């Protein structure tokens, strides 16, 4: 039997029982469409995370205190010895020891309530220097940035994130107004532009001079140089010199912390590339997980096909006998049943691709629990899913078809 005849024969057999065929097909449709939709959601998440990080600039390097090993130690015994100080940050500005570093912006943190009249809101406080804004790729909407004179003077000045500003002052420009944090009265000198959608959203942050945060909010002691920082943001000279800058930072800090050659670092340097890789890794796992769940439903669909094909072989035993008697070879029967199975899964695959595509297309931008779902439809996923559905037909169709082909024609003819 040639291919065209095989397909038309299979088509006739499949369409002879339309309800059964469509129910069988449905399993494949669900499997394939969920693969397509899940992969689109997964890839969408991956792409959006990557683009958000890239918005920050790929020349950003973050240095934080504590050895990597200790950070994840079960009993958290890292201790206070692993501390980065303002002096460490200043040392990174050295053009001789750290020639590939362009900008250094240390920060520390505090938290508390900001109070304006009767309005009261919790804030993520960040103690910064003037360089912070540039390091984090932020910009001002109103007023001015924290200046280094503010830092020297431990001034009680603050820059607000856009959301905080709106919460406390509504649509008014708050520059010049005052607010209280930890019983201290701050003058608001500026408001940052909203960065909604970025990964380190500053809209809920309040920036104050790093010295003010240390001495006047956290009640820290000691000299200016010894102020502990929670992390240092460093910009490399260019995106291409990130690795050189990383080496500079390591050299300077190891020297300053007087580490021996075989001591581990007591600080952690993270480039944006590291962050992207880590997050992409996590997202990759997520995509694989989603894909596997969807793949399992495709597998279940395949088992459905096999089940129906086995029933069909039993029901059509006599037909098989007749075909054999009039000259069909074993392989004619084998091909016929395999073709029927593939026909069903292929049709299911096409419907599934269309359905999955539609779900991904119309689901793009939908909001679930306040999160915007982004979907990225990839043609190769659709092609693969279609290929897999054909393979599922082949795989699950072959056993019933072999059973059909190996029937003894005499017994098959006698079958009632």
């Amino acid at each position, binding site marked *: *039997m040639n291919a065209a005849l095989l397909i038309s024969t299979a088509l*006739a057999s499949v369409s002879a029982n339309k309800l059964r065929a469509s129910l069988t097909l449905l399993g494949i449709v669900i499997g394939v469409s969920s693969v397509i939709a899940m992969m689109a959601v997964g890839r969408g998440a991956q792409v959006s995370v990557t683009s958000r990080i890239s918005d920050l600039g790929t020349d950003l390097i973050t240095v934080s205190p504590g050895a990597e090993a200790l950070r994840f130690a079960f009993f958290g015994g890292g201790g206070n010895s692993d501390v980065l100080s303002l002096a460490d940050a200043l040392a990174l500005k050295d053009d001789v020891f750290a020639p590939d570093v362009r900008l250094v912006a240390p920060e520390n943190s505090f938290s508390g309530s900001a109070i304006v009249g009767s309005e009261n809101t919790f804030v993520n406080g960040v103690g910064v220097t003037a360089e912070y804004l540039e390091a984090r790729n932020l910009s001002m909407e109103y007023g001015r940035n924290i200046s280094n004179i503010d830092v020297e003077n431990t001034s009680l000045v603050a820059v607000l994130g856009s959301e905080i500003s709106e919460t406390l002052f509504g649509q008014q420009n708050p520059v010049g107004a005052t607010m209280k944090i930890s019983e201290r009265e701050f003058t608001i000198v500026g408001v940052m532009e909203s960065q909604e959608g970025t990964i380190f959203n500053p809209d809920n942050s309040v920036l104050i001079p790093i010295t003010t945060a240390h001495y006047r909010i956290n009640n820290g002691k000691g000299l200016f140089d010894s102020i502990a920082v929670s992390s240092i943001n460093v910009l490399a000279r260019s995106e291409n010199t990130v690795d050189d800058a990383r080496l500079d930072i390591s050299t300077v800090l190891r020297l300053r912390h007087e580490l021996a050659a075989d001591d581990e670092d007591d600080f952690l340097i993270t480039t944006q590339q590291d962050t992207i890789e880590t997050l992409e890794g996590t997202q990759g796992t997520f995509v694989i997980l989603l894909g596997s769940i969807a793949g399992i439903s495709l597998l279940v669909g395949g088992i459905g096909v096999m089940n129906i094909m086995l029933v069909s072989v039993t029901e059509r035993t006599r*037909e098989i006998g007749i075909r054999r008697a009039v000259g*069909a*070879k*074993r392989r*004619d029967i084998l091909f016929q049943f395999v073709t029927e199975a593939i026909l069903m899964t292929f049709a299911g695959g096409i419907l599934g691709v269309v359905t999955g595509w539609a779900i991904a297309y119309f689901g793009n931008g939908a909001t679930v629990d306040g999160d915007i779902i982004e979907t990225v439809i990839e043609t190769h996923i659709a092609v693969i899913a279609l290929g897999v559905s054909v393979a599922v037909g082949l795989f699950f169709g072959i056993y019933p078809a072999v059973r059909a082909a190996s029937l003894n024609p005499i017994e098959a003819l006698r079958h009632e």
Partner: protein
Amino acid sequence: MTSTFPAIQLENVVREFHVGTHVVRALDSISLTIEHGEMVAIIGPSGSGKSTLMNTLGCLDQPTSGSFVLNGQDVSGLSDNQLAETRSRQLGFVFQSYNLLPRETALSNVELPLKYSGGYSGKDRRSAAKTALDRVGLSERYDHRPMQMSGGEQQRVGIARALVKNPELILADEPTGNLDTKSSAEVIEMLRSLNEEDGKTIVVVTHDTEVAEAMNRIIAFRDGRIVEDRSVDQPTPTSASVDSSKQ
């Protein structure tokens, strides 16, 4: 189509079946020759081995030992595929229960053997199937499905299907078993005409003595052996020599 070989030549054919620990000899050293253009009835009680003989002649089954030469070709050693090809090329089957595909039309049922033998376009298949249906007098029934036809008509579709590839040999297994007297007579008449006018060699397995007496030769089976082999004188003389001269 002229051949110096007999249509069928069996020599010491044995067919054994294993039933539990027993060995049943369904065919016990059968030797038999059927010439081209013969019209033979095979009779015998149930279990006499006539069905096994039919399966062997039909290349659906292989003898345990002995040789079966079909139209000059030794069939006993052939593979499954070669047997399928032999069935397709040399044989036409007619069954007691017609064995038509219920969802297909008469035309499509008759086309079936052509689908498994390559070299026919869709057009060729349809025209060959129509010719075969015309031959059995069903020109008005091309598009009818088996359920829409009488038993006699269904059996004639079965005969058309057996004819469509123009085989030398037609094997009919109880072709009238499910039919009333009138339809039986029609089917027998049809088989006779295929023998007399088209020169087909016809072998019919039957219980029905009337059917058997309508053939030119009767072979009786009992317990896997031939117990009687006689020719029948038909009222209208039919002669093998006339048939073979036509060929």
